């Protein structure tokens, strides 16, 4: 009996660690994503804007022309342009490129999105032509007009203080999402797809035509999946700590509880999904249809608050959202177990329901 359980468990581990694909998606992929996105949004962004300058007779420009010729660096290839870069310690670099051209050309450039603003000058007054609905153009207007006025971008009366406290950077937002997304994928692909494949190979059918204990089979599958989930979590967490200094500010108990109940929910869902299908393609479709929308909607990579107001309440109760939001509040906001009690119970209870339903209609043959 004991040896049967051990054998089944050992085999789950062997299958997992011998599958390079599974290892990549579970361990390497989240790290690569966090590296790519983490660094992309950590460097202070360079603002780059282009303006067309339309000065018909060159001669009567008393503001723009002297500005271009004295303050900007001129380059003539591939065409004549002027460029000015303002570097602010806190704000980062702002580079503006001025392109002299005719009105007609400037209109075409605007339509193509190559420039965000057009400058003209009439009787000693600079005129700005742009679409006020476009925030990029508005930003260009504000910065160029102050440049032309000879002011600096940051006024002397104000001071910029970038937020550097824990839990407010993009990487802090991202890491909890990568953890929950990884757990969801790992459960759904590992359990659901694994079972469907075993059924399609007729391996399940062969295994239950022996005195094998079905409960052992299920138990070892969940045990091993929990171990993989925990390993994935630890690896990404250590990585995020070392490279980005992300750390769990809330209670470890709450952290463990939400990881366990979130994993449990997705395991239950996996069983339900895998309960009948014997066709790996159908299984593949099912799993993608569930994971893809949640990955996009549940605020893994960007906040779902940008979605239209009427869908936000729905998104908020998607399982992956509940899971991610709770984990985020524990890691970044220092929440404890009482703060996440509601999502914790929702995940555990629905997990239990899908789990029992899945086992009830489960087809071994």
């Amino acid at each position: 009996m004991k040896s049967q359980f051990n054998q089944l468990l050992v085999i789950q581990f062997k299958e997992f660690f011998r599958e390079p694909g599974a290892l990549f998606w579970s361990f390497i992929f989240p790290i690569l994503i966090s590296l790519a996105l983490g660094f992309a949004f950590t460097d202070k962004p360079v603002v780059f804007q282009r303006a067309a300058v339309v000065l018909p007779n060159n001669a009567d420009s008393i503001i723009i022309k002297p500005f271009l010729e004295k303050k900007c660096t001129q380059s003539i290839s591939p065409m004549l342009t002027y460029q000015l870069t303002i570097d602010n310690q806190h704000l980062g670099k702002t580079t503006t490129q001025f392109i002299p051209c005719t009105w007609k050309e400037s209109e075409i450039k605007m339509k193509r999105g190559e420039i965000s603003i057009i400058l003209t000058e009439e009787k000693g007054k600079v005129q700005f032509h742009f679409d006020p609905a476009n925030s990029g153009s508005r930003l260009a207007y504000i910065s160029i007009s102050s440049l032309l006025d000879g002011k600096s971008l940051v006024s002397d009366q104000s001071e910029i203080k970038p937020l550097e406290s824990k839990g407010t950077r993009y990487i802090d937002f991202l890491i909890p999402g990568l953890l929950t997304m990884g757990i969801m994928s790992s459960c759904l692909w590992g359990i659901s797809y694994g079972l469907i494949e075993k059924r399609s190979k007729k391996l399940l059918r062969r295994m239950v035509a022996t005195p094998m204990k079905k409960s052992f089979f299920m138990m070892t599958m969940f045990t091993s999946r929990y171990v993989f989930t925990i390993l994935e979590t630890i690896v990404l967490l250590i990585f995020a700590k070392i490279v980005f200094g992300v750390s769990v500010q809330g209670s470890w108990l709450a952290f463990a509880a939400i990881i366990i109940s979130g994993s449990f929910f997705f395991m239950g869902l996996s069983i339900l999904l895998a309960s009948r299908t014997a066709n790996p393609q159908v299984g593949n479709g099912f799993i993608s249809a569930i994971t893809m929308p949640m990955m996009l909607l549940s605020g893994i990579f960007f906040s779902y608050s940008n979605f239209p107001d009427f869908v936000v309440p729905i998104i908020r109760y998607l399982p992956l959202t509940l899971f991610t939001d709770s984990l985020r509040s524990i890691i970044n906001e220092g929440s404890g177990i009482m703060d996440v009690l509601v999502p914790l119970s929702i995940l555990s209870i629905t997990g239990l329901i899908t789990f029992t339903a899945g086992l009830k209609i489960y087809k071994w043959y």
Partner: protein
Amino acid sequence: MTYSQTQPIVQAVNIHKSFKEVKALNGVDLEIMPSEFTALLGPNGAGKTTLVEIIEGIQFPDTGEIKLFGKHWKGNKDELHHQIGISLQETRFEDKLTTRETLKMFASFYGLNNTRVDEILSIVNLQEKQRSYVVNLSGGQRQKLALGISLIHNPKLLILDEPTTGLDPTARREIWDILHSLQETHGTSMILTTHYMEEAENLCKNIVIIDKGKVLAKGTLEELISASKTSEIIQFKVLNKSLFPDFTNYSDVKQIEKDEISGLVTMQVSNTSDFLPELIGKINLAGCGIAELRCRYVTLDDLFIQMTGRKLTDA
């Protein structure tokens, strides 16, 4: 085990099984005695898999009764699982486990250990492949692994569903040899499905011919052939078909079949040596000319064609 050697180990009575419109089994009766090798011979779609899976307790009949060792599946699952060893049609084992690990896992289901795994590896001659991943095994090696798994707990009854389909003749021969020696050394009983008549003839004393969910005939090879009343076949090609004489009124000729395109003539005769001189004489007289003359004993294939008008190997 109080089970008697003189009682059938498998008793199937009037088994019916339908899948929507398809009648997979349409009133099948089957009895298997201990130490017998029985072949279920029939073309694709005959209902062989459905029948053996019902015997194995994997599928359940719509009506009819099935007993193994005098017991129903219901309530005796654990006991019966220990008595039968099965190999399903087309089971694929886990790719990234080795031969040995796969055997070890199945051994653990029966509470058996490494000693038995070693024995099995030697019985099915896979010692050299014990550390290879299943994904790297050839078709024959995979079938031997499946056979090894079915043997692992030393079952009284082996049920093998198309164990050699798709294998080359050498690999097939190897499996046959393993099965022959099992019968000699262990007195194992076996049910095997196949659509190769050579396999049924070579391995099994009893042959059950099934088609379209019905048993068409059963018995030993000799019984089946004597029941068909013809035993000998003469075949030749006619070179000039228009000159071929008429043989319909000859009492020696039981049946005559002509293939109009190839000119192949198949005659079922009661006694080749009596009839052959007469046949040659008549053909010489007619001057039609023949080639590729062959005389042979009737085969299961011939019987199947007689009964159904189709070949065993037709889909």
